[in-house]
């Protein structure tokens, strides 16, 4: 980051290579839409570029950039509450001469479908996706930062502004909730499901 501030554009590409994947997946699992996750990823990196002079070396870059990403996710979730949600099953508005249009459900790519409608997805994946989706926001962000970005609990704490012990507790609560949701799947069953997923 310091090199980028001094004018080394290659240094920024190194940062992008190192962090973009984790950032994208964190955003993807937070907003549940690839297109929107891409837009947010671009926004995060643009903000990094614009704020490069304000970056303080005392703070880790990981903490800094995920703070930006997290704030964007929070804004996104607030906006989503007020967004009009069309029924996925309702037919699209007819255009003149086009007859009955298919439902929105049929036009959404499979990755963007709600968990219940991912008919072709492995059972476990679907269950876990749904369980993660239903986690409280503070637990979900800790869970995703741990899984997607590989951040330590200390880094997560710095990002979300909570003590490390609090972050560990949230992670434990998240795992307990997942455990409850998947209680019918004993570890053996989970292992079988994983094998099933691995072998198609």
């Amino acid at each position: 980051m310091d090199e980028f501030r001094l004018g080394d554009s290659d240094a920024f590409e190194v940062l992008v290579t190192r962090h973009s994947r984790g950032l994208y997946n964190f955003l993807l699992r937070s907003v549940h839409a690839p297109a929107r996750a891409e837009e947010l990823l671009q926004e995060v990196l643009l903000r990094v570029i614009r704020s490069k002079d304000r970056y303080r070396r005392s703070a880790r870059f990981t903490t800094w950039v995920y703070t930006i990403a997290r704030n964007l996710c929070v804004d996104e979730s607030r906006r989503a509450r007020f967004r009009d949600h069309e029924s996925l099953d309702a037919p699209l508005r007819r255009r003149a001469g086009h007859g009955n249009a298919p439902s929105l459900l049929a036009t959404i790519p499979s990755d963007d479908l709600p968990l219940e409608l991912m008919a072709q997805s492995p059972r476990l994946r679907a269950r876990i996706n749904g369980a993660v989706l239903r986690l409280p926001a503070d637990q979900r962000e800790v869970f995703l930062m741990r899984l997607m970005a590989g951040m330590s609990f200390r880094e997560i704490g710095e990002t979300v502004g909570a003590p490390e012990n609090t972050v560990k507790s949230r992670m434990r609560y998240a795992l307990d909730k997942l455990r409850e949701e998947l209680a019918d799947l004993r570890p053996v069953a989970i292992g079988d499901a994983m094998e099933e997923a691995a072998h198609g």
Partner: protein
Amino acid sequence: MADLDLGPAELDLLEDALEDLELPGAIDRWLEDGTSPAVRERLEDYRSLLVASREALPLEDVRAGVLDDVIAEANRVAAVAPVAAASQDSWWSRVRRSFMMPALALAGTAALVLWVFDPEDRAKLAEPPLTPTASAPTVAADEAVDDQAPEEGERARELEPLDPPEQSSAQATPAAAPAPDAPTDEGAIDGASEAKLAEDADKDAKPKATGMGSLGDVPGGVMGGSKTAEPHKQAGSSAGPASGRWDIVARADRARQSGDCVAARQEYSLALEDDDPRVRARAFAGLGLCDTQEGNDPGAEANFERARELDGEVGGFIDSQQQRARPSKKRKPKASKSKKSVMLDDMNDPFSP
């Protein structure tokens, strides 16, 4: 599923173990002998969930081209960054520029001022006049001397307080450029006119005390300015070399006049070490005046006597000081009035004999 079956220590253990739970053998490392089976079971469930979650939520790659515009923007910004960075200093540079340079400049200026001004001069400049009358002759003398050539300024200032009015006027008259009128106005110079010149020069320079005289630093004569006899006597005297003790005498006089005889005595004691008998005479006079203030009349008389032995002219100073103090002493005659009132009271007192 509830945590009711686990104690706080076990819950802490669960949370601490989350740090590296997915690593091989982590559970065995965290668990000790005697750890409850419930903790082990919980840790194993956590580990399975984490592993399954990673499988269920694989890391997706960023689609190609999504970040091309971002990289382009970064390149553009980086191209202008070196120019901006050159002008952007670190906080230390800013602090240094904002504070250290002005501080150094201020320190240098202060050092220059201290070097230019002699400590004695600063002390004299810093001496505030106690009263207009007290300060008038000194200031007048100083101002007269200030008008001399700058290189003589210091010496003149040292000389001035030592001189009787006539001497100071003799010195000041040629030097006092702002008061050139005195000699020309006065015409021929003789003993009497010299005295008048001295008084006029002082008047011109600064308003000064009336005949009751000032308490100032100029020895004798200014206070004796009301008495023309003394200026006569001093007319022909030559100004002696400046002594540094006159400023001490001046400080002592100011202390005495402000009521601090303790400080005044200390200063007078220092002045007693001077070689100039006039300085010592003034010091003794000042000590005597302190004695007078404190009601020690015998001591005062003794000091006055010593003073007069050293310098016959100091009597005028003593008299003027005593006259100045006389209003308070003049209150004593009120006692006589009060005696009258006492007599009246006695007369009216039915019990008086």
